Each structure stands twice: as C-alpha cells, then as structure tokens.
C-alpha cells in the first residue's frame, strides 16, 4: 500500500480534553489577587509591599524545599503556593513585623499543606492555618492596627515592620482600630460608603469591598471559582445578621455593615472558595457556604474576637467531607432516597 505507515498513538477515550488545567486556574486566581495587593500597597504603603513579598517568598521557599526534601520535582509552577502566600499576606495587619509574616508563610505551607501530602490533600485552607498560628502565637501584633492612607506611608515604614526576629514590636499608641473593633468595643458605627470603597483600617486586603467583589466576580464569571460558595457565604451572613438586627437594631449591626466590614468579603471570595477544602456535591456546597456565613456572624456577635471568618472557614473545612457524605446526589434511574 502506498500510505506510509505512521506511528499511531493508542489512547483510551475520550480523545479530547478541555484546555483548562490546574495551573491555568491558579494563574488566574493570582491575576485576581494582584489588584488587591496593589490597593493594599496604595493604602498602607511600603510596609504592605514588604510584608506581601516576605510572606509570598516564605511560602514559595517552604513549598520548594519540601518538594526537594521529599525527592519530588518542584511544584511551584502550579501556582498554588503563591496563592497561599498572597492570600495569607492579605489577611495580616499592615504593621506586622516581617519576621512574623515569614513564620506565617512557613507554617501555612509546612503545617497546612505539606504535612497533609501537598496540593489537593490538605483538609484546611493553608493560608488560614498560617493565619491562625500567628493569631495564637502573636496575639498583640496581629491585633495592632495602623491607619490607612497615612501621609508618610510611601517613604517610611510602619514602626513595627522591621522588628528583629523573636522580639515583639513596641506597641503603637496611635494605632487605628478597625470598623469591627470600633463597633464591638466602642459601639461606634462607620461610614457605609467608606466601608464599601475601602477607606478605613484593617488587614492588607480586606478593606475594599468593591475591589474584592470585582476581582472575585472576574474569577466567578470565567468559571475559575464556584460562584455558589461566595453567594452562599454572603447569604448566610446577611440572613443571620439580619435576624439579629431585626431582634434588636441597637445591639446588633445591620446586614450591610456585616457584609462590608472585616474579612468576610475576602474570605467568601478567596478563601472559602479554595476547592480543596470545600465539598463537591451541589447541595453540600450551599450548606458549606451558609454555614460559614452564619458561624462568622455568631462569632462576631457573641465571641471574644471581633472577627470570625477565619475560624468559620476552618470549621467548615473540617465539616466538608461529612457534608459531602450526607448529600450524595441522586443518580439517574435510582429512586429518591427515603429520609
């Protein structure tokens, strides 16, 4: 026969595959985080820039070293360690000593991710594991807030930033409280528009509700995150906050304040949506989000801390496998499960 015999590859069907892969998803999440980092630097200046770089570098180095120690090829290219580093940095207060940021990045990857077996195997959101660690280890530094848009922010560092390792920074007397802290401890309300735009104090990335929704919305529209999770979280928070507000509008804040203050937005769009710690069945995803929103509000209103999103997500991460088990979808051709 005239046809030259080609080398034929044998594959099992399907022979087509979507061009989308894990690295592409992660890359777009990084793109979506960059405007938030940019706004953080604009609002808090040089200290914010250095803190973001430190935390991200620490996370990347830890990931790389762990892969090398276990004799595997480096996994930095999948982008997940960079996301962990950036998300973690955005949850930290601007004046946090850089060495504490490095510790947070190390713990996030080492304890939150590598110990479980790396990407895809971690139970908890690694960034929040790092954040929870520094919350417990450095309770003062992590709750020391610095005012946004300080005049000298691009030329000088915040006092605490360069504290030497293993030392605590000198407490800053003029530190600016966050809207959540103001409400909880001093019963002061904040300007709603300032909250929405991000013209107030807080952690690096949590302040601008508008920017978070735009960046997260981009990921949702492109299908890089499951939109049901942030919607469910916000719905859960708004509903439970609304219930308390109806009961007593004097004691409890309105749902708008709940949604726009603190880390709820950042957590809903960028942390609860980490698929590794989230459930997979359609029903469980809604329960997961609603639970996070409700627990956040309960912690905020009745706990000792002004903010609850971190523990809410970590708790829901732990519950995710059980939610999956309880909500297995009905398969085509099978009878509805008796309740």
């Amino acid at each position, binding site marked *: *026969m*005239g*046809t030259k*015999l*080609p*080398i*034929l*590859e*044998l*594959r*099992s*069907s*399907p*022979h*087509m*595959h*979507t*061009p*989308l*892969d*894990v*690295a*592409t*998803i992660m890359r777009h999440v990084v793109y979506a985080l960059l405007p938030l980092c940019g706004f953080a630097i604009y609002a808090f200046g040089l200290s914010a820039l250095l803190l973001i770089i430190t935390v991200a570098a620490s996370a990347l180095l830890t990931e790389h070293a762990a892969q090398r120690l276990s004799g595997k090829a480096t996994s930095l290219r*999948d982008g997940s360690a960079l996301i962990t580093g950036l998300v973690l940095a955005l949850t930290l207060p601007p004046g946090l000593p850089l060495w504490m940021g490095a510790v947070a990045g190390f713990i996030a990857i080492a304890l939150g991710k590598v110990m479980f077996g*790396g*990407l*895809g*195997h971690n139970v908890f959101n690694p960034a929040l594991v790092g954040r929870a660690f520094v919350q417990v280890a450095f309770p003062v530094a992590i709750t020391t807030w610095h005012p946004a848009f300080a005049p000298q922010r691009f030329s000088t560092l915040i006092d605490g930033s360069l504290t030497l390792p293993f030392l605590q920074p000198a407490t800053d007397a003029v530190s600016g409280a966050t809207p959540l802290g103001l409400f909880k401890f001093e019963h002061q309300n904040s300007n709603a528009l300032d909250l929405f735009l991000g013209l107030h104090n807080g952690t690096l990335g949590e302040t601008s509700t508008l920017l978070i929704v735009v960046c997260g919305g981009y990921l949702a529209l492109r299908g890089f995150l*499951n939109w049901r999770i942030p919607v469910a979280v916000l719905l859960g928070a708004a509903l439970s906050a609304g219930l308390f507000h109806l009961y007593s509008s004097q004691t409890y804040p309105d749902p708008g304040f709940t949604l726009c203050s603190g880390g709820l937005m950042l957590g809903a769009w960028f942390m609860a949506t980490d*698929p*590794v*710690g*989230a*459930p*997979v*069945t*359609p*029903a469980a*995803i809604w329960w997961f989000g609603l639970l996070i929103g409700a627990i956040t509000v309960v912690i905020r209103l009745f706990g000792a801390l002004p903010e609850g999103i971190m523990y809410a997500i970590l708790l829901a991460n732990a519950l995710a496998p059980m939610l*999956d088990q309880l*909500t*297995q*979808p*009905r*398969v*085509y*051709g*099978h009878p509805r499960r008796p309740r």
Partner: protein
Amino acid sequence: MAWFGRQRNTFARGIHPPGHKETEAHPIRRLDFAPRLILPLNQHIGKPAIPIVHKNQEVVRGEPIAKADGLFSAPLHAPATGRIEKIDLMPSVKGPKVQSIILKVYSADDQRVRYERPRNMNTLNGSAMIAAIQETGMVGLGGAAFPTHVKLAVPEGYAIDYLIINGCECEPYLTTDHRVMLEWTDDLLAGIAYVQQACGAPRVLLGIEDNKHNAAARIAARLPADGNIEVRSVRTKYPQGSEKLLITVLTGKEVPSGGFPYQVGCVVQNAGTVALLGRLLPRTQGMIERVVTLSGPGINKPGNYLVPLGTPMDYVLEQLGFNGSAGELILGGPMMGTSVASLDVPITKAVSGILALTRETITQQVDGTVYPCIHCGRCLQACPLHLNPTQLGLLAANRDYQAMQDRYHLQDCFECGSCSYVCPANIPLVQYFRIAKAMLREQVA
C-alpha cells in the same frame, strides 16, 4: 437536589466540547471498492454470525454470506461481487483477532447490487417486520452496534408509547446522521413507518440537536399529515444522544438503573439506522455499506462517505489522503471512539467516523501533566447521570472497587467521558472507571 429533565429541551449538566462539524456541508459521496474486504463475523453485540460460504466461492453484491446465530445475532451480506479468499482470524479494533470472511473484489465488475427484489411493505405486520429487519443485518449505527430487531422486539407485557428517533449526533466531528437526515429524508420517514409498525408505538418523537436546524426543517416540511410524528429540537450538548438521557428530555421519564427503555414505554433508534432501513427493506436488501464521516486535521479530503463494509482503514486513508506524519486514528467520535493500533482493521457496521488527529491537535488538547485532584467538582457538574466522579476517582486510586460499585453506583456509568474531558488536573477518570469495572467482572468470573 437532582431533578432530571426539568430544564427545557436538555438534561441537567453535560459538557460543551468544540463541535468541529467541519464536514456538515459535505454531501454523501461513494468511496471506491478496496481490492480486498475484511468482514468480521462479530460486527454486532450478541452471537457472531455463522459463515454460509466456503473458500473460493463466488458471491454477488448483496448476497448473504453469514447467517444469524439465533435471535440475538445479525447476518452478513457480501458488500461487493467477488470471490471468498478465505475465512480466517484477522486483527480487529478491539484488539484480539476475530474470525472474518475475506472477500477478493472483482475489479472489472460494475458492482451493481444483484441480490435484491422488491417487497410489498404493506403486507408486513409486527413480527414479520421484525424478521425482515433481522434479515437486513441492521445494527444500531450510532456506535453500540446493538442488533436493531432485538430492540424492536418488545417483551410481553410492555406497551410502547413512543418510538424515539435519535438525531442528536452529539459527538464532535461526526456528521453522518446530519447528512443522512438531510439527504435521505424520504428514506428516513419510510423507515420510521416500518419501525413504528414493528414495535407498535402510536407516537414518534424525533430528537434533533439545534445545530442541525436545516435537517429538522427539511424533515418537518415532509411529515405525513396524520400528525403522529413530532420533530423536537433539543439543545446541542454532549452527551445529548445518550439513549436514556434523550428519553428523559423528550418524555420526562427516567429509565430505571440497569433497566431498558421499553420499561418506560420507549423504543429508541438512531436516525441513520432508520433511514438505512427505509432504503433496504422495500428492496429486500442486506446492509452492505454505511455512511462514515472522515474528518480531523490529518485527512486531506474530509467528508461523508458511503463506504462498503469491510473496507480496510489503510485503503480509506490512501484514498482520502492521510497527511499526519504521526498521530492518533479514532474509529467513532472523539469522546467515545476507539483509537486503532493497526491500519489493516476494517470499517464495520458500528464505525460512524474515522478521525485522524495529528500530534499537534493531541498535544494542544491534552497537556501531559497530571495534577492531584483539587476537589473542584467540575466532574460532578459534568456527569449527566449525577454520579460523583470525584469520589469514584479517589476510591479507584485506592483500588477500592467494591465501594465504587456498592456506594457510588459505578455500574450506572456509561463511560461518556465528560468527567475526563473537564478535569483540570488531567486525571483519567473514565479510564479508571473502565479498569474498575473490568476488575469487578474478573472477581465475579
């Protein structure tokens, strides 16, 4: 949560792979006869046919050369006038060699169909019609190759409400049913009447994906006035052409797990199958050729060709120009088709397409990197049966095949490949499931 068939004109979930229907405007053309035809005796699901010819016997085009072995089997007919060279084991698509009749084609012959006679179709009632259909050797042309008459012989005690004609052709690249519906419209309508007679269905629903509007419009314009045939547009989505999903979309009924369409009063036939029956039955002719889509970047002259059964792959590729220096050859569609190892395998009754994907297209589509599962749940959003491929995949990795079967309904999976298609971690999910099913079969055996 899961509620099947609630969405309009489609099922919940599924995927949207690129259509690649590049050959949809190519009219059906006849392919020349290869010098030798290879005719496996097991071109259908069921018992292999029994040869009724011997070595060196001369046969004319259309003459039966193998008879059905009982009810669950289909006969074979000579696709060309020629001489039986031998009956021997030959390579097959599935791997192991199979008993095949090798036919040396007389190149000087004009290859008219000589073995046929007109039949009065009005005298055939239900069971005689089913017998006549079995005589044609017809099998489902969509790819499963289930003998057509078996599906029409509805067991005692079941009444059929709907005959469903499947004109979805949801696999990318394939355009055979599209062309057949467009060009053989009258044959299709005649075939529908025969099949309706055979299974006793009072109503006919013709499901056509909405990327084939011209075919749907053409059929709708020629429908008989009695109004028992209805053309329904369904949304273009993979795997819309799955028998069970199409039943649910068109009738709202759900075929029980492990059950058959007749249990919900439906019989489903592929549009191409019915149209070919419409051509064969009035002439008392057997199935000797079929329409095949030849497409993919590796083929110089893509199109829809009427190919004699038994034509070897290398002959087809030689005729149509295979330009890929290396690549993958797929029999059937890219989602559920089989890639072939050798070019001497023949076109059988089940082959709906030959796709020549070059190395460039393969590497463009499949990045080799396999990542760990990140639990993104895209496979759950893709699985048309609402299985949990994430969990099934994790269990498969642990070789816990029993749990896959007992708790996560592995046996319901019909291997459409949607989960593997969407997986951003490139995990070969459906491939795992095939292995799991094979391991479970072996345990039982």
